């Protein structure tokens, strides 16, 4: 368990660095993938049981790295990710079981909704708290951002699933 948590923390750190430096050069019409959010969502999505402690620890770590990258205080992303993570797990329990325990048809809509909730809530928070914010920005660029992030998330979904299958065949992380 500790090994898993430490690996996830290292990945969050690496993805936070890549997101704000390397991938800034690969924007599509100004949209850059939010790798930390994508990784958090995938980790929670593939978490087998309703392991709330693991979800909260992941949300705290991912939230810290997301808030370090932004110019706000550390906290809003932690709360948002915790709520999104716990709701996601509860929602997954309600969904009809298929042959595949983590189907892609569930992943993509859930990711889209969660991403929109996260971005919109953060916009609202910044609008009410930060004096430099002059308006709530939510329009076509944000939709494009969602499409770009969903694309990257889809790729990482299959990579992570392969990795999960590989580790479950061998030893658990």
């Amino acid at each position, binding site marked *: 368990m500790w090994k898993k948590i430490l690996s996830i923390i290292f990945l969050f750190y690496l993805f936070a660095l890549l997101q704000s430096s390397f991938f800034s050069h690969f924007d599509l019409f100004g949209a850059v993938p939010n790798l930390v959010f994508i990784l958090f969502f995938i980790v929670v999505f593939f978490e087998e049981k309703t392991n709330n402690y693991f979800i909260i620890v992941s949300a705290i770590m991912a939230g810290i790295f997301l808030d370090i990258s932004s110019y706000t205080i550390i906290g809003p992303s932690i709360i948002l990710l915790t709520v999104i993570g716990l709701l996601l797990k509860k929602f997954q329990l309600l969904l009809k079981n298929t042959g595949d325990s983590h189907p892609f048809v569930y992943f993509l809509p859930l990711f889209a909704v969660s991403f929109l909730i996260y971005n919109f809530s953060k916009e609202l928070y910044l609008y009410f708290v930060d004096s*430099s914010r002059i308006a709530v920005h939510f329009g076509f660029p944000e939709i494009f951002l969602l499409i770009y992030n969903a694309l990257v998330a889809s790729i990482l979904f299959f990579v992570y699933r392969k990795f999960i299958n590989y580790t479950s065949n061998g030893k658990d992380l």
Partner: protein
Amino acid sequence: MTGLKNFYINKKHKGWLKLLIGTIIFIIVVFILGLLTTSIKNYFYAFSAPIQKTFWFAGGSSSKFLGSFFRVGSIVNENENLQRQNQDLLSQVAFLQSIEEANRAQSDVSTSCQNSEFNLMMAGVIGLDEGDILSINKGSTDGIAEGMPVVNQQNILFGKVLKVYKNFSKIMLISSKDSVINIKVQQQVPADNTDSVPEIDGVVKGGGGLSAYLDLIPVSDNINSQDVLITSAIEKSFPKDLLVGKITKIDKDDQKPFQQAQIDLFFNVKTTDNLFVITNYKQAN
């Protein structure tokens, strides 16, 4: 039976108690992290700046390499446009050479005044975050303060300092959706036109995604594609005459009181490694 019921209620209460304690611990953790924001961010960037800088350079090189494959067509068009612009400029140069002699002395004086007026602090770019926020490796210990203008060596305006930490700062680029600056349109005057050109004022609003647009130009004013935009004297946050961008496409509707235009900002964050913070510009407000 009663004992069993009590046991059930106790167990239920225990669950609620665990949830309550868990929530309180969570709130305390978030609150403490919030209080330690400045220190955490500063340690993070102090520790990660060298790695981040390496990733920044690697990303720039990779993007240039890959971009060259995808942008062959646009490079050809760009080259043709540049050749055309070069010819136009050559004809203007010939005309301006005579005027230049007379203005040289005065312009030299004003340039030296401008240079001596501003203290510039060089800072390295270490990252670009969402919302068009740039990170630089200089902070309050280097004399950086919030609101200071940020330019490059060609006097191209990038933005202003939004947040300052001990060893690094966050810059809000002029392309940020929260950025609005007063500008002046420098019209392209034909070489044979000796009439004085009226000054046109407007604002450049950030569009997000490293883009911006021109707004609040009265519909009666005549602006053209390729006109250059510079900061206006009425701008409070920035010194005047800093380069902002050029007009690419005009959106004029006679039914509206103002016209808008798409613009190309002069700055290129992806190819920029160092910037200059003007540390002694006195803001009017």
